């Protein structure tokens, strides 16, 4: 199949940036979206042009490195999929595709489709540690965890931190990411000692990074490659509000 691409090209953080049109011919329907871009990049290199920069690592949908907008959809039109696992058989000959980086004040564009997601790392950091005994690995069944709780915690822990939720949200909020990260520890017995500090610190870190707020539109849930539920956002809000009530509205110890 032959495609027309409009790709965001930006030399560096200070560059203005612009959409540039490319024609890609004879794309195999078995290729992934990233492989299709690899083909484009080979052509560009052949012509002596700068290849399109995009992030990727595992190409198995598990590392969370990849991601950009395709015609207004984070990770493209297929639900529950990262762009590295999105196959070209879902597109057809003659398609015109607009490819843009995540747009968020908290995610500055570094180059072309690559954004700096350091804001996510700082939210995680704000969550702090969990109290665990160090030394030898403990007996696995020392702390019993009910199966439904373990399952819920795993649902949250599926988050790969790709940033699609922020990119799709009309308010540019990071609530789905943050709530998944707060919840997977707050659900488990191991996460209880710091539960409320964690909720306070991570929610406040999210505001500090310049993300938007949550209107409960659920756009994030629709595009999340791991199909993480906005139920976790309600859970995060509950822990945050409870923490505020319990701590007499003081600011958390760790920030």
């Amino acid at each position, binding site marked *: 199949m032959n495609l027309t691409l*409009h790709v*965001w090209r930006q030399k560096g953080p200070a560059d203005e940036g612009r*959409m540039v049109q490319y024609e890609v011919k004879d794309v195999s329907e078995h290729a992934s979206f990233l492989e299709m871009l690899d083909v484009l990049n080979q052509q560009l290199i052949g012509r002596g042009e700068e290849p399109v920069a995009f992030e990727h690592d595992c190409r198995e949908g598990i590392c969370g490195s990849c991601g950009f*907008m395709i*015609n*207004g*959809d984070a990770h493209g039109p297929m639900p529950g999929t990262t762009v590295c696992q999105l196959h070209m058989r879902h597109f057809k000959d003659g398609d015109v595709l*607009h490819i*843009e980086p995540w*747009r*968020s*004040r*908290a995610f500055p564009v570094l180059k072309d489709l690559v954004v700096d997601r350091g804001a996510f790392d700082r939210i995680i950091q704000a969550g702090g540690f969990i109290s665990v005994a160090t030394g030898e690995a403990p007996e696995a069944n020392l702390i019993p965890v009910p199966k439904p709780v373990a399952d819920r915690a795993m649902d949250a822990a599926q988050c790969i931190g790709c940033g699609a939720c922020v990119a*799709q949200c*009309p*308010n*540019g*909020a990071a609530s789905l990411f943050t709530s998944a990260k707060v919840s997977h520890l707050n659900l488990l017995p191991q996460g209880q000692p710091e539960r409320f500090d964690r909720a306070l610190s991570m*929610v*406040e870190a*999210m*505001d500090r990074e*310049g*993300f*938007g*707020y*949550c*209107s*409960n*539109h*659920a*756009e994030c849930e*629709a*595009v999340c490659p791991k199909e993480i539920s*906005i*139920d976790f*956002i*309600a*859970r*995060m*809000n*509950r*822990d*945050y*509000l*409870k923490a*505020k009530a319990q701590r*007499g*509205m*003081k*600011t958390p110890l760790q920030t």
Partner: protein
Amino acid sequence: MSWFSALYRSAVGKKAVMAVTGIILFGFIVLHLIGNLKLYEPGLYKAPGETGPGVRYINAYGLFLRHVGEPALPAYGALWIFRIVLLVAVILHIWAAWQLTLMSRAARPRAYASRPKIHTTYASRTLRWGGVIILLFVIYHLLDFTAGTVNPGFVEGDVYRNVVASFSRWYVSLFYILAQMALGLHLYHGLWSLFQSLGWNHPRFNHWRSGFAHAFAWIITIGNVSFPLAVLTGLVHK
């Protein structure tokens, strides 16, 4: 009030304030509808021991609102407490909406070249403009039925007459109906959204939340739209 400002500083806190004030306003909307249904009550109301012909039920209800709580409270006392609570709720609700809107604008300084796909509902995308329409409507509504300045031949205390006089003009009725539809849409999303904002979720009752929101959005809209329609069709007349 330091606990309030500490809470209000965060976006989650602002949304909690919106949700709580939204609940207060929703409670008012429900009572307001129940009160207005008296417009349909046939015959006249006579207080116990009263000898005259009696008054329209809706007028008697209006009188009740002004004197409820007497003699423990002065006349209009309970009414003014109610009004102040509502005013504070409205101000906080709009203030938070405004600040959150600015926050959202700032979070994406550069728009997408190709517009993001819409997965969300029409109701949730129209909260902001819908809110502005509701606000303009509320101001007109107060001038119409409370102050009486834009009501043709306003008679203080004769609620029935004032309603018929106002809604007999088709363009006023039309504006009223459009505003009620905006309110219906606002509640369609808002009454569900507040559960999320306050963290009220549980697998056992989650599926009731949108049912609750949709049912009340429809009840409120149909109920409120029925009043101008009843006047325009002559069902309720002088």
